[in-house]
């Protein structure tokens, strides 16, 4: 089964002469255990794609299904819950709450979603893989950019989502770091059976991808 599927999605902004079509009949699916990479130049519609994928924006037309349920059939509240449960967002800017320690960033998830999160053992494992197991009592302000990003990744993984959506996760990183993050995303997909969807214009990630797509002026095409 597809963890995530988009069918005939169109997105237009504005009306009349100001109308722009940002996505044209986008069809996309992602399976658990795979890393999908969507490459495209600036302004091609990548972020719009992610916004729709996360249920934050209802497309002008077309359907989006997550684990078999259509966003359309869900209330705003249920979509919030779905994002919390099933979708881990990794944003380009990691924006961790400055007044929560790393441990508290994770605790916040428990407060809102008491069950279905990673078991303590599994969490330990993730933190160790990310190399942040010793940073639990630090505030974001005391961490380097790379460390903050790894915390943001841990934060996204903690609710044990089926799907990981990442927006330009490597934009601010140097070559060495890019390899580490690419490796990590790959590990997530393969070892944890997540459907990982990464949107980027960073060609350095291509090697890690199982599926490669190109986005050009809102048209998504699959590369071989």
């Amino acid at each position, binding site marked *: 089964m597809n963890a995530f599927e988009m069918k005939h999605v169109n997105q237009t902004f504005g009306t009349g002469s100001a109308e722009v079509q940002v996505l044209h009949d986008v069809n996309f699916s992602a399976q658990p255990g795979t890393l999908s990479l969507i490459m495209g130049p600036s302004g091609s519609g990548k*972020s719009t794609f992610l*916004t729709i994928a996360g249920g934050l924006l209802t497309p002008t037309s077309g359907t989006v299904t997550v684990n078999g349920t259509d966003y359309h059939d869900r209330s705003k509240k249920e979509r919030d*819950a779905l994002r*919390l449960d099933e979708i881990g*967002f990794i944003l380009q800017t990691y924006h961790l*709450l400055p*007044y929560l320690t790393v441990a508290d960033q994770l605790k916040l998830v428990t407060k809102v979603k008491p069950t279905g999160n990673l078991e303590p053992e599994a969490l330990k494992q993730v933190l160790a893989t990310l190399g942040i197991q010793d940073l639990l009592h630090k505030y974001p302000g005391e961490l380097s950019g790379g460390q903050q990003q790894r915390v943001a990744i841990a934060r996204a993984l903690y609710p044990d989502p089926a799907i990981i959506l990442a927006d330009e996760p490597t934009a601010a990183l140097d070559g060495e770091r890019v390899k580490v993050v690419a490796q990590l995303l790959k590990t997530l997909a393969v070892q944890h059976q997540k459907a990982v969807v990464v949107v980027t214009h960073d060609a350095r990630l291509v090697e890690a991808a199982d599926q490669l797509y190109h986005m050009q002026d809102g048209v998504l095409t699959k590369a071989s």
Partner: protein
Amino acid sequence: MFLALKELKKEKLRSGLMIAMIVLISYLIFILTSLALGLARENTAAINQWGAQRIALNSTANTDLRQSFLTQQQVGKLSQKEALIGETSVVAKASGHKQLSATFIGLKSHQFIAQNLKLAGGRPVRHAYEVVADDSLKRAGYHLNSQLKLNDTAQKFTIVGFTKNAKLNISPIIYGQLTTWQSLRNMVNGPVGSAIVSKDSHYKTTQKGVKVYSKQQVINKLPGYTAQNMTFMLMIGFLMVISLIIIAVFLYILTMQKLPNYAVLRVQGIPSKVLVGATISQSVLLVLSGLAIGALLTAITAIIMPAAVPMAFDLTILGAVGVGLLIMALLGGLIPVRSVLNVDPISVIGG
């Protein structure tokens, strides 16, 4: 609550400043309220202590006790529930003491005011040239059997007793006999008193030239009383509004700074409810701690404040003021809630 507490803990300086501000505002409001209440009590303590319900004055006196004179005919026959009083302002003098402005109230010893007067020492007045004084005269150095002159009388008066809460229009009362009042006023053959005080709320009189007022009507006409109360009410009201604005502005700024973070939380599926809860509980926490410290300072002030300062600390009234401040803070806290609800998660996706 989790978020609010964590934030207060991390941002100690910021929260500290905010709390300090609320402490100052609430302390100021508490003190002003106590002062207003204290002054109001010193204006009305005696009238309240008498248990007056209705007060009959000369109808041409403009509801002013000081301007009212009643003739024997106007007074007529009084029941057990009425008492005739004579009021005049006096200056008490005694060698070795500063001059002291006071209010002389002449009473008839068989009527209810004299009968019910609670003494804090000494005995009731039995003869002319004997007086019972407010115990603030003790603070001025007088004691039982002290002698004093009233105005420029040749005769000396002896303090035979003290009583508490004998204050009218912020000046201490010296109680004596009604005949003494007549001689102090040089009206031996004229009016017999200033007012009829009744503890019967249905008291009426048919005498010409006499009008019956409620206790509150007379109190409101005490010199300066209404103006004073209005001034305090206005100050307290303004402070309430100012605190509302300050708290609203600060919470607004604090919240605005967090909106990008909140947008990320929204992307992650944290419900708006949680974020709104954090904002509101943050304002409640800040204001409650501010109020608590403000109340503590007020309590300390109440203990160390000299008795001469007219301050009255009434828990119910201060409690109501505290609740008022809390409501103001909650209203102030609601303003940023709007922006929290309107946080657009899409704004943090992109780049």
